[in-house]
């Protein structure tokens, strides 16, 4: 983060609550637009994102007794009769279970279907596509600590967004930083590799610090990590792999860094760090 904080472009942010957390959308203020027009644009964009999150939550929330997911868990509905959206997410989650050799799973230990591990990432992904479809090139979407960005906080430049990662031992401080974005999402230029960490659009973090141990380990090394952050080109990959590494410990961490084009920062139970090159100074 040697980038000096030249925030010539002030950010504007809007937030809403969904899926038990807070989602915030930040965009740089545009000097070429009338302030009111820019504010209206952000307002409208936030409404689109909120609508999308709310709709997915109404399908997948296990906190809502009337959701489709809750009906599935209660056995009132079988997966083959479930909505296309439900089946698509199940299929995606099942694929990730194979790819992570079971470290990521769409099922709770008691066998009940639980797609919440993939739904938030999916919602962020869909929201990102909607924002791009609205013609917005520069934005930062943060859903309860998982981040997807597009473009730059300084429009017209390739200056990346600067993300901080919270210290699980003291969430008032930051453990590390990571540059995100700096190039248009979904338009990777040929040969633009992300080994330097400058062009990843998504950062997801999984941990036991905030919500308690809602991640269940599949191996003996389950409690190896307190927090795992993964930066990747897309948010579902980052989110799923962070969850998988949290559950699968060091073997899954090594597998993930070898198989996927990601950067990872893992905090061990006693605070020691493991980091890939992109997270190192």
């Amino acid at each position, binding site marked *: 983060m040697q980038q000096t904080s030249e925030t010539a472009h002030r950010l504007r942010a*809007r937030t809403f609550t969904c899926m038990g957390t807070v989602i915030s959308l930040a965009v740089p203020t545009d000097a070429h637009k009338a302030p009111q027009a820019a504010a209206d644009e952000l307002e409208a964009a936030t409404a689109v994102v909120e609508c999308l999150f709310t709709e997915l939550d109404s399908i997948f929330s296990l906190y809502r007794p009337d959701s489709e997911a809750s009906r599935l868990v209660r056995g009132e509905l079988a997966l083959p009769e479930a909505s296309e959206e439900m089946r698509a997410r199940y299929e995606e989650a099942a694929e990730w279970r194979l790819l992570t050799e079971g470290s990521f799973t769409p099922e709770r230990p008691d066998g009940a279907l639980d797609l919440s591990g993939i739904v938030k990432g999916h919602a962020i992904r869909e929201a990102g596509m909607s924002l791009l479809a609205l013609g917005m090139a520069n934005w930062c979407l943060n859903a309860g600590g998982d981040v997807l960005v597009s473009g730059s906080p300084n429009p017209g430049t390739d200056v990346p967004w600067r993300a901080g990662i919270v210290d699980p031992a003291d969430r008032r401080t930051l453990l590390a930083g990571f540059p995100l974005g700096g190039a248009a999402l979904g338009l990777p230029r040929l040969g633009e590799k992300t*080994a330097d960490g400058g062009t990843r659009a998504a950062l997801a973090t999984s941990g036991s610090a905030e919500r308690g141990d809602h991640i269940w380990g599949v191996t003996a090394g389950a409690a190896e990590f307190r927090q795992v952050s993964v930066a990747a080109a897309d948010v579902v990959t980052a989110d799923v792999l962070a969850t998988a590494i949290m559950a699968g410990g060091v073997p899954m961490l090594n597998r993930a860094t070898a198989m996927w084009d990601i950067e990872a920062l893992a905090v061990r139970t006693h605070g020691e760090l493991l980091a890939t090159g992109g997270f190192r100074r």
Partner: protein
Amino acid sequence: MRIRAAVSAALASAGILLVGWQSGVHVSDTRSAVAAAATGNQASGTGITDSSGAASSESAASSGTTGNSGTTGSSGAAGASGTSGAPGAAAKAGGTYDGDVVQTRFGTVQVQITVKAGQITDVTALKLTDAEGRSVQISNYAAPVLRDEVLQAQSADVQTVGGATVTSDAYLTSLQAALDAANL
């Protein structure tokens, strides 16, 4: 008879494998049929080494029959040694060899190995660049680091904060909430 042929075939290909690993080194081992096949091939070992990279089943078969009792290197052996994976090992006793050009997610990769006395003594990257000609990191793994070795960030200097999912209650006292409030 069929079983015998299969066993002979297996022995013969095992022998060829042994030669591959040990050619240039003395085969001091004199154990039963396998050793017999191995030493038998050892006699014509240099011939195999000089032949083209992929020792075809033809040359494998011929060496099998030259070496020892023709029964071992019968038609069954020829087929078996062709598929046993022995040729690479058997043929390459020394020198440098270029691998195939492989497309990976890190770009185009090609390696060269140096073999001495049947052992790989060096691996060199011939091509290890992406489309723009920059060299890129190829082995990505998470290593232990100290806190001051990771990318640093101050809360005043970031635009967003990542962390394990915060509940909407916890959000109120989070750094992200402070950032959002500053940008409202």
